[in-house]
């Protein structure tokens, strides 16, 4: 049994489905194409920094899905493996709920002065911006605080 190629013994190998090499090859080409798209998209302005980021991440996600689905063979894997893949990314998504804290902090009805500084993420250290107005800082490691 062990001497015969596993492919001929479907019962033995269980889910050991052998993928057509051309599928793998075209998948690679497709991924490389998407990579070029990623690069082009990063140069292109869709009008909004959020949209730009979302587009970049969407393309990356599509790439990831193709790697998982075809290269990693989830396409032919058992249902259990599929469930685990989904669970893993699902809980990862849950973990990003941590960001909800930072997103909602600015709406807290506390009359603090840190909220007056936009885009500072609640950090008490004010950022000096724009930088071009600043004098040249040579050899200085840290910008003075406050």
């Amino acid at each position: 049994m062990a001497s015969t190629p596993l492919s001929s013994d479907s019962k033995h190998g269980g889910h050991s489905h052998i993928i057509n090499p051309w599928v793998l090859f075209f998948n690679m080409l497709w991924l490389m194409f998407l990579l070029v798209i990623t690069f082009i998209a990063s140069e292109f302005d869709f009008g909004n920094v959020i949209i730009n980021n979302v587009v970049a991440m969407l393309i990356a996600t599509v790439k990831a899905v193709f790697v998982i689905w075809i290269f990693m063979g989830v396409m032919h894997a058992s249902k259990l493996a599929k469930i685990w893949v989904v669970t893993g990314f699902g809980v990862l998504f849950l973990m990003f709920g941590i960001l909800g804290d930072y997103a909602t902090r600015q709406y807290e009805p506390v009359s603090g002065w840190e909220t007056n500084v936009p885009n500072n993420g609640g950090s008490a250290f004010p950022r000096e911006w724009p930088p071009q107005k600043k004098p040249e800082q040579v050899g200085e490691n840290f910008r003075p605080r406050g």
Partner: protein
Amino acid sequence: MAAIASDHGHGHGHDEALHHQFEDMEQQNDSYIVGMWTFLVTEVMFFGALFLIYTLYRSMYQLDFYLAHKVLDTRMGMINTFVLLFSSFTVAMSVRFAQLQNRMGVLAMLGITQICAGTFMVIKYFEYQEKFGHHLYPGPGFGSSPSYLNGASPNFAQLYFGLYFGMTGLHGLHVLIGMIVIGYLMAKWWRNSPMVTKDYIPTELVGLYWHFVDLVWIFLFPLMYLMPKP
């Protein structure tokens, strides 16, 4: 509990690749695949936490991160991505050859993968060297060549480079571990060990791991190298 003896004990005891605790190869293969996937899920969570930290800080300090990221060489990142994608393909092919028990095919494909991994690490080395040369490694001497900061706040740029070195470093460590594991696997194939030749699963598991390394890079590359202008 009224249990009766099962009639299928070690039915396949003669199969060299079958471990004693399993009933048959199907159960064993399935177990290994599921086990590997659960392990990969832990890896997803492992890198996921870092991605979370990165997402948060980048959303806080978008402009500084954007300015700091300009130092990175996108060409090198692109080349590395191509290399990793190609190595993913060769690993997938090696799994295919393992299923077909084509020993030379597996060795050739894994060999190419090793070369790709080596190329990746060499490019990474040059990238790191450049950053060190520009005093962009976080710590006391950070930013002593301010022109390389492109006007980003040295504090926030330090956060960016901290994450850059942390995440790409951990990814690089995974590549290194992958190289060692693939090397071990190649040695097994080279010596015609029944552990790999009679059973494609070890090759498949290594392949899954390698794809995961690729997967991490697929996200790292656009996040680190290709930031849209805020």
